[in-house]
């Protein structure tokens, strides 16, 4: 017996509104009940004539009232037929019964309604069903609707912000009803959320990781040897550009994630060495300049261009430096492709120089490098800021040594370092080695004369940290390797959602339909 709102405003009904009242008229204002608004708590009707009838509830317009009419806040009684406040809508076209204030009820609609009502001559008691029983509690929490706010404009003035202030009260009420235990839980959750926002979505996290006394990111500088400006001597093709772009982007991402510094060395500008002996000793100058440029840097990590950080989630601190003594080995006999006799023998040497472990203190390590199948590898190594390092960088290139050895030294500075390590006790004491795959895994193409070696070659199951495509420019496909490793790195480091999509949904879909999908 759904009664249209407009058709029966005159019959104000005194049933409690239910939450099911759906259609509010456009001009309806609403208000939230406050208990002290009302003279009588039992009746929440502010202005009964404003109420829309409730679909699905029996219309009581022509029926004996089951309850006495409620007082209205402005005083007086609201009763059927005596409608002080109405929507003012009139429909003159139809013969209408107009109330004293111009409220109108069409005869037709009234008739229909009474018919409808007579179809359900129900005697409705209270407390029938869930809604009737809980109506009050439910309705208390809902805004009340007010059809014509202008009528009560003056009265409402003090509470102009009808919504906001009561909203606060409501929130307060809600909070008051929450138990203490839950309050504490929610507080903790809120704090965690706040910390998450603070550290991961703002630069604060970045600065935390950078600060030397917190995350310590500023202690590390990555030097990437790139030919940024484009080749001067050699023509640089699209593939070379792509390699460089990927490599640099990879390092940039890594560095910005952990708060390190990245120094990209433009090797083409170092061509002033080209006609000197010192060509390929630019490393020395670059490292020195970086220590000068980043005064807080403690460790410099040299990286060749053909490297790719496969696991950007590893921080250098976690991966190596927090537990330096566990990762490094100082006794070269553990892996000694060059067959350097260690320790040095000499009746004039001090104890530490003749000890395989040096002085055994990880704090005295100033140079950390990996060894590949043919000896030292300077594609990825660490140097610490120290007087020792100054001396090494100073002594690394020497004209007398170079003059005697340059024909043998195919890898120039690398061979020179091997020479220094072999002959000079002071170098040995402060040099340590890392297992190659810790910072410098090789792809299958490099060092492959003796087949695969678990000490040398990349293994994705172990999630190796970094891949160095060493020697790929000599007959291998640098860009192909770089591309493959890049994609592999993305694949290995997919987030849970991507894993869910690709490992579960796509696989199920493939099993069901036989079609591969890209999600």
């Amino acid at each position: 017996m759904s009664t249209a709102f407009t058709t029966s405003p005159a019959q104000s009904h005194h049933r409690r509104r239910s939450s099911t009242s759906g259609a509010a008229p456009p001009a309806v204002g609403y208000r939230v009940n406050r208990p002290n608004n009302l003279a009588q708590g039992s009746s929440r009707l502010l202005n009964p004539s404003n109420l829309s009838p409730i679909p699905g509830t029996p219309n009581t317009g022509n029926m004996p009232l089951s309850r006495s009419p409620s007082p209205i806040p402005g005083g007086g009684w609201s009763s059927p037929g005596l409608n002080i406040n109405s929507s003012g809508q009139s429909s003159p076209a139809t013969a209408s019964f107009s109330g004293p204030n111009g409220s109108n009820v069409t005869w037709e609609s009234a008739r229909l309604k009474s018919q409808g009502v007579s179809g359900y001559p129900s005697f409705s008691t209270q407390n029938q069903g869930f809604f009737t029983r809980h109506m009050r509690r439910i309705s208390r929490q809902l805004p009340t609707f007010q059809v014509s706010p202008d009528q009560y404009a003056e009265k409402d003035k003090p509470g102009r912000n009808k919504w906001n202030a009561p909203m606060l009260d409501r929130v307060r009420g809600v909070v008051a009803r929450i138990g203490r235990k839950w309050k504490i839980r929610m507080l903790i959750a809120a704090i965690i959320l706040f910390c998450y926002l603070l550290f991961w979505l703002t630069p604060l996290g970045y600065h935390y990781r950078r600060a030397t006394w917190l995350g310590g990111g500023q202690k590390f500088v990555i030097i990437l040897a790139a030919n940024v400006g484009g080749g001067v001597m050699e023509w640089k093709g699209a593939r070379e550009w792509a390699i460089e772009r990927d490599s640099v982007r990879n390092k940039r991402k890594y560095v910005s994630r952990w708060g390190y510094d990245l120094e990209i060395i433009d090797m083409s500008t170092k061509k002033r060495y080209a006609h000197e002996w010192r060509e390929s000793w630019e490393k020395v100058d670059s490292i020195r300049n970086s220590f000068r440029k980043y005064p807080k840097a403690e460790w410099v990590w040299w990286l060749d261009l053909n490297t790719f950080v496969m696991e950007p989630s590893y921080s250098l601190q976690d991966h190596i430096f927090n537990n330096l003594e566990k990762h490094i080995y100082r006794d070269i006999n553990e892996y000694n492709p060059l067959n350097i006799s260690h320790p040095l023998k000499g009746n004039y040497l001090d104890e530490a120089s003749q000890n395989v472990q040096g002085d055994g203190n990880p704090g005295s390590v100033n140079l950390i490098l990996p060894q590949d199948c043919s000896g030292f590898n300077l594609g990825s190594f660490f140097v610490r800021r120290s007087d020792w390092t100054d001396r090494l960088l100073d002594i690394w290139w020497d004209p007398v040594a170079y003059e005697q050895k340059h024909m043998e030294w195919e890898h120039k500075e690398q061979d020179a370092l091997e020479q220094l390590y072999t002959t000079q006790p002071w170098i040995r004491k402060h040099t340590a080695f890392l297992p190659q795959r810790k910072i410098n895994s090789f792809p299958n193409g490099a060092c492959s004369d003796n087949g695969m070696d678990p000490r040398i070659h990349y293994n994705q199951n172990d999630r190796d940290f970094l891949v160095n495509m060493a020697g790929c420019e000599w007959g291998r496909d640098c860009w192909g390797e770089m591309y493959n490793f890049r994609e592999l790195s993305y694949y290995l480091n997919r987030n849970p959602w991507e894993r869910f999509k690709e490992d579960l949904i796509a696989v199920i879909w493939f099993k069901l339909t036989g079609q591969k999908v890209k999600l």
Partner: protein
Amino acid sequence: MHFAYPPRKSSNPPPFLPRSSRISTLRRNRLKLVAIAGLSIIFLLWLFSGSKTKASPQRIITGTPPVVIVTAFEEKAVGAEFIRNAKSNRREYAKMHGYKTHLVSSGDYDLNGSPLSWAKVPAMRHAMAKYPNARFFWYLDQNSLIMNPDLKVEDYVMSARKLEASMIKDLPVVPPDSIIKTFSHLKGDDVSFVLTQDKEGLSAGSFIIRNGDWAEFFLDTWFDPLYRSYNFQKAETHALEHIVQWHPTILSKLAIVPQRLINAYSKSSQGEQYKEEDIVVRFPGCITGSQSECEEEAKRFLPQWQKAFGLS
């Protein structure tokens, strides 16, 4: 509905037991509070622990003995008699001031076929291994005698004030016209290597090294097999001139002092001549092949130093 009656309580209640643990004295929620506080403290510690990179250990040198005198002797070159005198000369001097001596034979070290004069470098390194707490090592070549036992090396040469006053600044390292010059602003405490020039250039016959990491680096570098195999005309002396000129980390620790301070010569033909009260006299060019030459020269000074030491 009928429920079973609850079981009867024992009519002999167990006696009160003492509290099993102390924790139960704390109320439960207080325990929780303590746990939360502890966890948050641990979290904060972790947050502010920073990254721990171990500092490089600094060896502390106590300075006992203050000075070690090092000499490598070639018996074939100077003769046993001379060596005996020179050794007792150094030992007496060391005894007077609480120094130690490290007097060895050049043949003790494996030089891999290079000239025996190279032995001074491993001899110094050996002394450093033997006396790790000595403050200074003074290499005094075999063809020399200490003449003035009253002077203490660590005060008279190596004290910062004396050194700053006596070091020759802005001096071409290799005379007459090397473009590499000694530093003009160098603190006495930063000097780790004191030597002199004679008329031919740097003199490696008498030099003082301050103990420390730098000394190891310097001696090892000097002793590099590639320098030894290079056939420098004057072996270790020219190798020294080479590394001093090419490697600023060495030059920045070096001070050249007036020759007579630690390296006076008996003849003026090769350098500044010895005068009374000088600490040392050296006989350059006495090692020529015949053993007698150094002995001849030393004879002139024998009574003098023995008198000064109060031996005769």
